[in-house]
């Protein structure tokens, strides 16, 4: 057996900050975020794309970071759960609704759901899309939660979607 596989240089803009690293081609984006950058808010529940706990935004689109290779994110933008709060540490409406509506119990699936829901809210806000309960559950069914029974998660996202459709002002809680 030969030694370690050859490493490749990559540059990824993570949460608005450029990071250059040499990585093995087989390194997943989730391992890169967690182990190279210390961004442990991105959780790994299955490493096989089934649970969605590792969901991040890749160039603004939700992606499974466990099934994405770090090299595939070379030259692109990645946003993780750590990017959601503003410079003063204030929560987004979504985060605030998750807390208030108890849309989490153990908290492990929470970052993935927040990133998925952030994408949905952005579509509603920027593209004017509206989501029926059915359309929303279809989208949210990409991720798994084992604790809550999903009810408060759906209600939290619906609350924020309602807030945005009622008024376009005030993104922060």
């Amino acid at each position, binding site marked *: 057996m030969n030694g370690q596989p050859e490493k490749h240089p990559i540059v990824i803009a993570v949460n608005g900050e450029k990071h250059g690293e040499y990585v093995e081609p087989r390194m997943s984006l989730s391992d890169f975020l967690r182990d190279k950058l210390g961004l442990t*808010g991105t959780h790994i529940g299955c490493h096989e794309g*089934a649970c969605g706990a590792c969901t991040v935004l890749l160039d603004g689109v939700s992606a499974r970071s466990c099934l994405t290779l770090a090299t595939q994110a070379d030259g692109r933008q990645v946003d*993780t759960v750590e990017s959601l709060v503003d410079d003063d540490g204030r929560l987004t409406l979504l985060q605030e609704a998750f807390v208030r509506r108890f849309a*989490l*119990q*153990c908290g492990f699936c*929470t970052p993935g759901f927040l990133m998925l829901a952030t994408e949905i809210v952005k579509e509603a806000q920027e593209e004017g899309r509206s989501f029926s309960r059915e359309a929303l559950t279809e989208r949210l069914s990409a991720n798994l939660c084992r604790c809550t*029974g999903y009810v408060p998660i759906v209600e939290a996202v619906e609350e924020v979607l309602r807030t945005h459709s009622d008024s376009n002002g005030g993104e922060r809680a």
Partner: protein
Amino acid sequence: MTEHVNDGGDADSPVSLNADRWVRGGGRYLADIHLPRELTCAILRSPHPHAQIVRIDTSKAEELEGVRLVVTGAELSEEIVPHGYLWDLPGQKVGHGLCLTPDKARYVGDPVAAVVATDQYVAEDALDLITVQYDPLPPVNSAQEAMDPDAPLLHEHWGDNIQVRAQWPVPVADDSPPPNVDDALDSSTLLLHDTFTSSRIIGLPLETRGVIADCDATASNLTVYTSTQSIHQIREAIAASLRMPENQVRVIASDVGGAFGMKAVVYPEEILVSYLARRLRRPVRWIEQRDESFVASMPSRAQEVAIQIGFDSEGVMLGLRANTLTDLGASPSAAGAGTGWVTGALLCGPYRVPAVDITATAVVTNKSPLGAYRGYGQPEANFPMERLLDRAARELGIDAAELRRRNLVPSDSFPHPTSTGLMLDSGRYTELLDLTLQRSGYAELREYCEHARAAGRLVGLGLAYYNECTNFGPSGILPLIGVTQGGWDSTTVRVEPDGRIRVFTSQTPMGQGVETVLASTAADAFAVPMDHVTVCYGDTLSSPYTGYASGGSRAAGVAGSSLHAAADKVKVKLRQIAAHQLEADPEDVELVAGGYLVRGSGMEPLPLEALSAAAYRGAGLPDGLEPGLEAVGVFDPPSLAFSYGVVVALVEVDADDGTVRVDNLWIGHDCGPQLNPAIVAGQVVGGALQGLGAALYEELGYDEHAQPMVRSMTDYLLPTVKDMPEFTLLHLETPTPFSLNGAKGVGESGVIATPAAIVNAIQDALPSDVEELTTIPVTPLRLLRSLEESTVSPSKSQDTATHSA
């Protein structure tokens, strides 16, 4: 009585102390922890269900760059003492109890060797370089097969594959003999029997297990981070297995990403990784990979119940006979045998059954060892009872709810001793049934279903009643039922020098919200805002002792009561200091929001910080009073507490593809006073959705060669957002006399009766000649097979016509 319609909770009291941190990505789960100089462990597991290990060659793996150590089972069997058992029933046989099997693999996934390397990638590369020569043996593939006298033996020295048997009624010396079950069954008008199967499933917390062990330079002190519910049990097990004193082992559970009973007892990896860290004098981490979790973590259920019940003409139960058979998997785990015992002991549920004859048998097979999952034997008991009661109702022409009402323990009969020797503490069983029927519109729903069926749709209504055994203890009884840990809990309360409050709990939060409940309890006890309270947990260095730990739905009632006991002790002292400073009799001093004052004086209260400042300075105190403000409270429940409830399910079956849609679940529920209604609702709803998964989707199947058919989350179907029914929760609050706060547990309520209610509803939806559904999950395949045998199945055209109408 309250009615919960998810309204977003009470804005004034936070429903989770940790939520604000978690939504920022600030959780600190096991894999998030990294230690300097750490190495990574990966485990080689047997691909054979049953095989003798002839030879293991680790030389190529050892040569790989980055590999530091490779160990095998034979080597470790000299150095590590076998682990003990949380459930150790009388007469129970045990397995080797070692971290790595020394000579024979007994299931696919049995740990055979371990690699320690620089990282996960290299460690997994090294596993591929280990060659093991196996001599395959014929496997035992089912519990029935295990009972065959000619079956291969898993543990040759046992002489058979039977691990343990338990029987009820339990003979009690000097007591009158229990009612004869044969007489009871002979005298019944209706005698029903059937065999029901709850398939092998798994709790599957989204955070897999993991262990990180660190030892100091002298290798005499170990710190072990592990994702567990039971830090003191793990400390005891590591210390015993590595022959260390307990004061040299510190166990830390950081944020736990779900547990559901699956992380309740010690696992081989906790001992193995501790051993490796000590041997290498370096931190070693092992993070369970999801694919390996399906063979390495403990599944549960896997039980068949053959049950016979005799009824009189009014539908009243006269007697019950049952044989339960638990498929324990290869070697008994620390918790395995308890599930079958619980099923037997709780088979009568919330009902009066005067005569019983129950035998619980647990056998070993060539599958992963069985452990705990939320409900722990209770859903397995509820499913056969509630299915058979529905059938009795149909055969006797009595409404299903009415038949249950006639058998429920009446409100004036508590405390009620059961025929299996337990004591039901308190409840208003029939009142809750009536309330739930009324709020769900049960009678109208029955009519709705009949109309829908007349129009060709397969719509059905089902209900199931349950009780939940909670506040697990008391310590005096546990040894009699084979539990090797104490059933008491303790809490330390400290008022800090600035008057803020720190609570040290023995309980481990894992999403159930115990930290939040204890914080609000302490805030109420001292009449301070909740943000004046900090709750510390998850570290044997500072957490008070608990033996049974965070399982058996005991945190609110048992740990909560111990917090009351501790707070009371501190408040006695505070009152003495206040009386001294106010120059009043302690009897005349009272605590109000803001501090202590003389009752009726109209004075400004003396704030807590003034009293605590005195307590810590040691000056301004009554003569002879010890400085400081800290006390340990201990609570050992005098008896168990039984929460209870009823689940009503409305479902629709798709005859074309065999899928089931659960439209509504109405859940009437009573866990005594709700210490935090949002948490209670979260536990019930979350548990009910897990029950839905067990009813319709989840199954860890094995093929005819005892190979596991699930090695990936894509093969193990969990409920998604799309399966979420409309929930309506109703509550009564009947306190238990057996805890200081009246609280009963709630953790397992949702999961117990939901499967039976859903399957009863499915049966109701199906044509009357479809055979009884006796196995969960009711997968589309199982349902379509049942429908194929029906001669009155609705035709496709009828079905289509209804949908387009």
